[in-house]
């Protein structure tokens, strides 16, 4: 695996994959929206409001997928000290934060007509809110230190400790009484929703996953380029003649 995990290799491979992730995202999401909005039937209990499901459920899956990806990258970065793993974690965090925000917002917009409330402090909703704060905490910690490696280290430890929240979210609907309905797709005994709803839901889920990798590759590439910029500036500063202005202070040329 480490053969692929060097920055130049990553630039090459991601450069080749970017157009494919972009095209699959557009096609999968377009097909999912078409089937979900025009072909799938309204729910017999929830009516047309069930169409919120086609964005609420995939964004919620992605909120947990991104966090798992973030924690996995953080673990590789901490244990093997691989610099690309740190960049991977940094790139995944804002994407996960956006998906979590969307899961919360669309859930709220679905909860109001169905449950009669925008928000309830129950296990599922609260644990997802905690997930959102874990993402924000990671982003804040990574940027809180002057030394970027210390920031990433602190953030990675937070990401790993916070991973305990992911199974809590998944099983919260089984462990506690909650307004939120239990799982209907990823169940031991198979999905309990009809194929006409399941297919658009899965198309959206796969499309959001390719979207994740699309944006993730863009952001990892940005981090690699930013590293080159820092290296370049360091070399410039080292090569610059040190001028003393008579008061004993060195004049830096770093701008």
């Amino acid at each position, binding site marked *: 695996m480490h053969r692929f995990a060097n*920055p*130049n290799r990553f630039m090459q491979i991601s450069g080749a994959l970017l157009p494919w992730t972009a095209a699959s995202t557009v096609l999968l999401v377009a097909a999912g929206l078409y089937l979900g*909005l025009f072909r799938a039937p*309204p729910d017999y209990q929830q*009516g*047309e*409001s069930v*169409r*919120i499901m086609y*964005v*609420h459920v995939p*964004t919620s899956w992605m909120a947990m997928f991104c966090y798992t990806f973030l924690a996995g990258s953080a673990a590789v970065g901490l244990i093997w000290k691989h610099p690309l793993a740190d960049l991977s974690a940094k790139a995944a965090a*804002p*994407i996960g934060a*956006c998906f979590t*925000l*969307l899961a919360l*917002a*669309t859930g709220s*917009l*679905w909860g*109001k*007509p169905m449950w009669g409330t925008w928000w309830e402090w129950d296990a599922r909703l609260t644990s997802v809110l905690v997930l959102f704060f874990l993402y924000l905490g990671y982003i804040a910690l990574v940027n809180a230190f002057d030394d970027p490696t210390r920031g990433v280290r602190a953030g990675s430890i937070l990401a790993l400790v916070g991973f305990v929240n992911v199974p809590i979210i998944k099983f919260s609907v089984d462990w506690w009484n909650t307004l939120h309905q239990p799982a209907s797709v990823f169940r031991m005994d198979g999905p309990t929703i009809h194929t006409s709803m399941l297919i658009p839901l899965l198309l959206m889920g796969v499309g959001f996953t390719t*979207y994740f990798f*699309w*944006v993730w590759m*863009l*952001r990892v*590439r*940005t981090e690699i*380029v*930013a590293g*080159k*910029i820092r*290296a*370049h*500036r360091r*070399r*410039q500063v080292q*090569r*610059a*003649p040190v001028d003393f202005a008579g008061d004993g202070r060195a004049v830096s*040329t770093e701008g």
Partner: protein
Amino acid sequence: MTDSIAAFFAMGGYAFYVWPSLGLTAVVMVGLLWSSWRGLRSAEGTLESLRAAPTPQGTEASGRPE
């Protein structure tokens, strides 16, 4: 025809909840994609101009691969 279009946008009376959900998702996802792409473009531009600029001592360092 116009009735069925109106019925589609009415979403069985849930238009106020369904369309903001879809719209917000679209805005956030497209916005994140756009800002990530812009960030990459601007970083690439900065690196290019750094490599093109002469170094303080005038030594040739531009275009050198990392």
